[in-house]
């Protein structure tokens, strides 16, 4: 019985954190936003050297062969640094789909290149969790028609897309009949967009079905929760540091109880989220009967806490919190996007209720 991180896991988390810090942290996200560019290839290269892009890919395919717990630890770091890099789609979901449903040929072609950071992959899954604007993909005899919104890791070379029947396909970004429309969200750190398919010839992942789609959703949800955990922790840390140095009425504002208690409430709500994310990731790896419900609960709960921390940490900073100068809003917005992706708290709680037989 051991519920905690191993030394290797802590080291992985630290080295990813250090790399993102050295890469510029928030400054890099700001620079990206200012330049109007939507891609940061240098991060992917560096992360692949750390083994992150092939994190769950077997070593025989050029990966690191680790588990989803490590994936969650990396996601937490990306959230903490509001990092503008593809990860959930490219490093985790696409390799997972290929491993579980791809042919040996598809695996051999894509897994090593994804792990090496030579190729990025986006995931079109949002419609599986709740379609908006009647979006959705019809797949017939390998031909795709329809729309997919809010693609994860949208700035990609390759897409893994799901149709309404729960089948999965590989579609290159250059496929004839595929039109991309950028969508601008609050969060500049993770560009997204819409894919429109008109008679696109797609390559099926033969082993895929609704169960795999469900698994991809659960994994993605857990990773969004981990990202929020990291982002919220970063906001709390900044609030505590600010409150300890900023003075009003001749004393640090952090010595006023109203401020102190805001910080205590954030910490009290957030700290159990860490164990919850670990447990949720462990469940995805090892406890199949709990994995789905735990993923729903984890994303719902961590999103609620994240939203609370995002506003409260901003408030602790006073007017400064509201400005672009401190840049807290980058984390605020990252948490805001994570919250809605693949189901907001209400939708996920409803899903958990259905999965546990509470809905007749």
């Amino acid at each position, binding site marked *: *019985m*051991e519920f905690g*991180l191993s030394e290797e896991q802590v080291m992985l988390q630290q080295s990813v954190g250090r790399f993102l810090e050295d890469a510029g942290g928030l400054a890099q996200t700001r620079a990206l936003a200012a330049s109007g560019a939507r891609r940061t290839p240098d991060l992917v290269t560096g992360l692949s050297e750390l083994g992150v892009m092939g994190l769950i890919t077997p070593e025989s395919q050029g990966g690191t062969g680790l588990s989803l717990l490590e994936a969650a630890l990396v996601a937490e770091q990306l959230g903490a640094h509001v990092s503008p890099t593809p990860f959930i789609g490219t490093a985790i979901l696409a390799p997972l789909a290929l491993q579980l449903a791809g042919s040996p040929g598809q695996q051999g072609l894509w897994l090593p290149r994804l792990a090496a950071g030579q190729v990025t992959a986006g995931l079109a899954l949002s419609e599986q969790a709740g379609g908006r604007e009647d979006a959705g993909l019809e797949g017939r005899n390998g031909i795709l028609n329809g729309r997919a919104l809010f693609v994860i890791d949208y700035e990609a070379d390759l897409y893994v897309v799901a149709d309404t029947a729960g089948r999965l396909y590989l579609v290159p970004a250059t496929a004839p009949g595929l039109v991309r429309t950028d969508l601008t969200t609050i969060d500049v750190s993770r560009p997204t967009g819409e894919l429109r398919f008109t008679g696109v010839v797609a390559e099926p992942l033969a082993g895929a079905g609704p169960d795999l789609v469900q698994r991809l959703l659960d994994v993605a949800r857990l990773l969004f929760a981990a990202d929020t955990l990291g982002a919220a922790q970063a906001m709390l840390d900044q609030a505590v540091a600010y409150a300890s140095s900023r003075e009003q009425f001749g004393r640090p504002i952090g010595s006023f109880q109203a401020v102190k208690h805001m*910080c205590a409430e954030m910490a*009290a709500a957030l700290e159990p*989220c860490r164990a919850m994310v670990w447990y949720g990731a462990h469940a995805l790896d090892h406890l199949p009967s709990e994995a789905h419900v735990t993923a729903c609960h984890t994303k719902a*709960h961590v999103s609620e806490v994240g939203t609370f921390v995002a506003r409260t940490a901003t408030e602790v900073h006073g007017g400064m919190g509201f400005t672009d100068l401190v840049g807290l809003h980058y984390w605020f917005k990252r948490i805001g996007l994570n919250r809605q992706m693949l189901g907001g708290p*209400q939708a996920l709680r409803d899903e958990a209720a259905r999965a546990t037989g*509470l*809905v007749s």
Partner: protein
Amino acid sequence: MDLSYSPEHEAFRGEVRSFLETHGTQAPRGGGPEALAWQTLLIAHGYAARTIPKAYGGFGAEPDILKSRIISEEFSRAQVSTGLGGQGISMLVPTLLEMGTEAQKRDFIGPTLRGEMVWCQGYSEPNAGSDLANLATRGTLDGDDWVINGQKIWTSTAHLADWIFCLVRTEPDAPKHQGISFLLFSMKTPGIEIRPLVDMTGAANFNEVFFTDVRVPKEQIVGRRGEGWKVANTILGHERGSLADPNQMQTRLNALIDLMRTETVGGVRAIDNPVFRDRLMAIQGRVLALRCNDLRLLSAAVNHQGAGLAGLVVKLQGTELRHELEALAIDVMGEMGTLYGDTPGLRDQGSWQRNYMYFLGLIIGGGTSQIQKNIISERGLGMPREPKLAQA
């Protein structure tokens, strides 16, 4: 990360289960002589007082946190009483084990464990609540006795207790935290008057306790003179954690789900009302988060590591959540949820209203939520302390 138990621990789980199969039906529902007999049986098998030395009336096993956890998991699964509780067993015994003299351990631990000696905790006073170190009950040495004068308040079970462990100011000239001693004395000692206080649940479980020239033999002190604050604090953290057990919360959550499956409004089951269901699921998510946090604490304890923030947040989060859980049940029942006491229509013996109020008591008792936030921010986050007021 490995949530499995070793073969030794799994075998132990098997033993606990077979004990529960054989003896579980004998387990008492309430107090009285049956409860004492049950306690004796539990100690004999090592399911109560497990790690307390045999010489002091315990079972004498090596400490093994996982085995203790297995016992509490299996007893709770079987819904069987884990034996006697109370402040004597949960607070005084660990204090004596750490700070008591050999004679005190021999005299007090055994009878306390067997339920022959019931204790109350005399800490709070009218002017010493959150600011406990402000306590003013005086103890003056006169010959071989401490002579005690003053008043305690909120003393739970004082009316049932045989003995009291009590914080008393014995060094009036020392700084506030260094002038307190930790004394033990019989509640039958002349000069003690107990006045019950009725609480909001309607029970009178706590009391005012008045001391007038109460004489206590000088050796009935734990630790040295003036060390009482330190003695009391050795186990205060332990009490806080135990007020908010997330596994108990899970049991209560299951009861809430049962209630929502049966309770109807206009013929519609509460569980089928999406608003109620969403509130239920939100609470379920929060209970899950605290159970995961609890696993982290368990693992840290097994590895002799400090728990840091993860431990400091438990009392605040746990008691507040439990209060909300009980509140949801009341909302689900609507007007029926206001029924209380001996009345037709009552659900679950009125336990939802009673617990809703009782847990507000626990939010206040054992260090209020505001005090918990002070502790979390100052000790957990290292935030600046409040400037001290100039001493008058």
